[in-house]
């Protein structure tokens, strides 16, 4: 399944890449792409990983907020 999140609070392009790397390591995530320009995180996964992704966001940077839009 494909989920799309709107990500707010990422400081820099390299942080976005680091964040993407971490989301990619979640069990069940086939591929995650963080687009720093459009601020969207697109996740292809076998099941809904919203909780895991939120957990990563919380531990990654203060003020990082995800909103699931699809």
């Amino acid at each position, binding site marked *: 399944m*494909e989920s*799309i999140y709107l990500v707010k609070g990422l400081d*820099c*392009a*390299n*942080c*976005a*890449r*680091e964040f*993407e*790397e971490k989301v990619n390591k979640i069990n069940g995530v086939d*591929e*995650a*792409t963080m*687009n*720093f*320009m*459009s601020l*969207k995180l*697109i996740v*292809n996964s076998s099941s809904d990983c919203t909780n895991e992704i939120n957990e990563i966001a919380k*531990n*990654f*940077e*203060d003020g990082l907020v995800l909103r699931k839009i*699809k």
Partner: protein
Amino acid sequence: MSKKQKFDIARIIIGVFTLAVLLPLHFVIGENKLGPSDINTFIILPISIIVYILVAYDFFIKTFKNFKKKRFFDEITLTLIASIAAFCVNQAVEALAVALFFQIGEKFEDYAVNKSRKSIKDVLDLRSDKARIINNFNLSNEEEKIVDPYDVNINDIILVNPGERVPLDGVVIKGNGFIDTSSLTGESVPRRIKENDEILSGVMVNASPLYIKVSKMFYDSTTSKIMDLVENATNNKTSNEKFITKFSKYYTPIVVILAILIAIITPFFGDFTLASTWQNSVFNAASLLVVSCPCALVLSVPMAYFVGIGEASKVKMIIKGSVYLEKLSKLDTVILDKTGTITKGNFVVNKINTANKDISKDYVLALAKVAESNSNHPIAHSILEAKSQMILDKNKISNLEEVEGKGIKLNYDNKELLVGNALLLKDKNIEINNYDPNDVGTLIYVSYDNKYLGYILIKDEIKEDSVNAIKSFSKVEINDTYMLTGDNEETAKYIASLTYIKNYKYSLLPLDKVNEVKKIKKEKGNKVVGFVGDGINDAPSMSIVDLAFSMGNIGSDVAIEASDIVIMDDKLSTLVKGKKIAKRTIKVVYQNIIFSLVIKLIAIILTTLNTITPFLGTYIMWISIFADVGVTFLAVCNSLRLMLYKHNKI
């Protein structure tokens, strides 16, 4: 501007002034020891520390948080370590410069990112932020309420006043007038709209208010879809983006490890009992940390793609992702569907040729019109649309019969009227004469009372820009153009000759088309082959090629789904403009990759050499600052440069 932004700018200005004063002191007086020897300790160091704290105090907070979250390779943390290391070896001005330029870089990046985001939003975001909903429509207690468009449901009635954008897709149920579709299609001629017409969100209502019955939820409406297309359509990365992701993953740790090695190991190769040996190695390690962020690449390359896609949308080309932009830049062969792509797809009566001078053209048309009055076929439609002076009475029709594949046979005023192709007349042994061989297109013959009267030539018009666009294909390195059509040989030949297309295939059934496309694709091997069609009938062909373009069906999900690139204004010249933009974008991508990599590599090599023999001394830090902030600045500017071009010419 928020308070925080004002503060940030203020401290940057203070930092820059301080640096401007301290630098000459540092290099002329401090370094060359012209002035008092303790100028460094009593003037430069204290001032630097104060301004440094002002400029970089948030680095400490951020680094503390990072450590708690076990993030050690964050650029702010590394910058902080580098600047503290510089202080430790008594290079206060360099320490201040590292922090200050980092802050300036951050501010600039924010500005650039916002600017490019805004530019794409301005063009593409046609979504309205409110809708005027009408409760109890047409009842005495009718009332108007302004709501969030997300809250409007299917079958709700909304009112759109002149000068407003239609917020949701729907059908007009009351009112008529003109709409301006230029935001969607680029077509600036107002279009007539009347009751029962479909209306797309994003268009502007011109003359009078329209009541619209909503047919799609807001997130499914055309405007949301267009925005979505660019923002989320694909998560495929181009090979360049993949390379950068991979490179960045290893780059920072490798540079950090190298810096640690330089700081700790290299002194043992020299005279490690001397403080200056350690100072030199620590300073070089610090300047290496300054180049440890792959920011220039990670930011400027996705930004270039983003800006490129935004620029394409300015010429009404919606590209579903960076992968397709890259393919577009390499587009080598284009396969064009004829009807609706090269031609307008609306059939128009082009000419009426009568059997002899005594028969009036108007009479032939009037007869055809009465015969076709109940037909739905596009050809019949074109005849009915044509203007005639004479209007015949429909009540005189009897025994109307449609002859499959041939035309219509009926009695008019009790005499036989035939309207159809040559076969229909041949069946009745009616001879056709006075045929003009220049008349290429669909021919509808009319015979009345067993007498041949003439024919109506129906043509699909070539779009105004098609000829010029196809001519300029070669200018943008589209080397081969094919035209495929289900039409007859004459029509295909005619259109091909007008548009200078050498390769064309005609009389193709839908399956033949797919086979032709397969053949061309095979022939072209690795070259990028594109197909341009309406996206609905051509979906099978589109799935075979490398790059599928659709035009003419903005509102259709199928068309958008089937294609990689949507040409909203239905013009082939947009393809030419789009390819130019794509090529320019990819060029910027490569420039940025090569430039950033080369400068970073040079900085790393120089730092390593400087550790062995300090031939650059403390200047190495300035090189590093340039290789980091300077390169990012230049690369980002290079990406933003893509916004400066005008796209009106092909």
